């Protein structure tokens, strides 16, 4: 804990969990998507679903999907801005099982057909957990430098990735690997002590069987 967890953050209200945390989940989805989404289906669960109109959770998530930060004064107008930016958005309420009461599934579609689905939870004080990416279970909180690397589940890929990272003198603090099924889609979540340069990302992207590399910096 540090003092700016106690006096801070600077944020748009009214709620750390239902506004600031919700925005952060949208922002992570935006970073993972890597391009301007054309369509966003936002599926709200639990307390998010019940109270989103009063807490501005809907506006916050759309603001995050447009890359805004939690203290951006445009958040309260994000829906109008999204219409102007030609983001086709819609909201649904869903009932998920075994998730935190402040959870949302965001499904994005790009202009060339790229798709992404992210499940995130807002666990209090503006903190978030990303729980699923494209139906693969993950678990990370975006408080450290984080690499998200979907890839094919095949021998050598993980070793190649960690090798490249190590050769660049970057230390891996935490690493989790998940797969949807043997030989199928898999994903690495790698948290590092040092930041990741653009060159390092390029070196990772050219590794065979890597689908994409997303670097998420803590805001």
């Amino acid at each position, binding site marked *: 804990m540090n*003092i700016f967890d106690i006096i801070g953050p*600077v944020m748009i209200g009214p709620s750390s969990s239902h506004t600031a945390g919700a925005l952060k989940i949208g922002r992570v989805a935006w970073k993972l998507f890597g391009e301007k989404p054309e369509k966003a289906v936002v599926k709200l669960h639990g307390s998010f679903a019940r109270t989103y109109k009063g807490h501005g959770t809907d506006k916050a998530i759309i603001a995050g999907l447009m890359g805004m930060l939690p203290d951006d004064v445009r958040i309260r107008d994000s829906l109008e801005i999204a219409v102007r930016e030609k983001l086709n958005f819609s909201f649904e309420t869903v009932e998920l099982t075994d998730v935190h009461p402040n959870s949302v599934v965001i499904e994005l579609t790009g202009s060339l057909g790229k798709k992404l689905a992210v499940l995130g939870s807002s666990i209090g004080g503006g903190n978030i957990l990303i729980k699923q990416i494209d139906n693969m279970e993950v678990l990370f909180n975006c408080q450290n430098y984080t690499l998200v690397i979907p890839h094919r589940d095949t021998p050598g890929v993980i070793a190649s990735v960690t090798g490249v990272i190590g050769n660049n003198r970057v230390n891996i603090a935490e690493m989790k690997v998940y797969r949807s099924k043997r030989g199928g889609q898999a994903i690495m979540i790698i948290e590092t002590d040092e930041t990741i340069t653009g060159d390092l990302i390029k070196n990772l992207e050219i590794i065979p069987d890597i689908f994409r590399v997303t670097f998420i910096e803590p805001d």
Partner: protein
Amino acid sequence: MIDYVSIQELIDKAQLTGRKISALVLEDQSEANGRSEKELFDEMAYKLKIMQEAAREGAQRISLSASGLSGGDAFRLSKAFDNGKTIGGSTIAKVMIKALSTAEVNAGMGRIVAAPTAGSCGIIPAALLTVMEEQAIPEEKIVMGLFTAAGIGMVIARNASISGAEGGCQAECGSASAMAAGALVETMGGNPGMVGNACAFALKNVLGLTCDPVAGLVEVPCIKRNASGAVNAIVAANMALAEIESVIPVDEVILAMKSIGALMSSTLKETSEGGLASTPTGCRLKNKIFGTA
């Protein structure tokens, strides 16, 4: 090096070194985070600037929140004070106006500083900014007051809770009030022991306070709790500055707050299932805002 295990730790270290709690916290955090004291001070000064904007903005006009449940009370109180209709002079009026303004800005999706939470964001700014004006205290001392508040908040967060969902409003607005009271005492030249007493008084005055927001929104009664929390901080600080001592030591009061929170029904801890939220009017408003049956 501070461990934030207790308020007494802060008091003892301050008394031992002859330095203020704020200075110790600043130095400790600089070491812990590898950032210079100047950098941390500047970041805190930026937070104070945002606090000033929110304390001002809400009182400028009547502007309703998205739900329609709140907005305009800071403005109303400001006008009433200007027209000589309030009790308690300019300090009490200003502290209430700033607290209401900040909390209304929060409810209206404006920009605030969570201190320690968004729900309690009006309390510390109102107390410190009012004293800055009324007592002509240099801004630098007020920024340092925020470090005192932060140190106190770290202890409470560690030993009890600063969240309404866990501990009720006594944890959220109560913590902010205790943080503000301690900061006020130091800013007004009180000694570290008085800082501890002020925290104890502020918390003791709100033990058992429930978190029962109408329609689950951070508006009713949250906004007005910011006003009472800010005034409560002044009540506590005044008693401490008068060398009145808390019969129960502050760290025991914090643990009492925690145990009371655990004893409280979950219906009174930010679930909107009891208290004000479940009054006939509370239910009617919830249905109206959310269109539920």
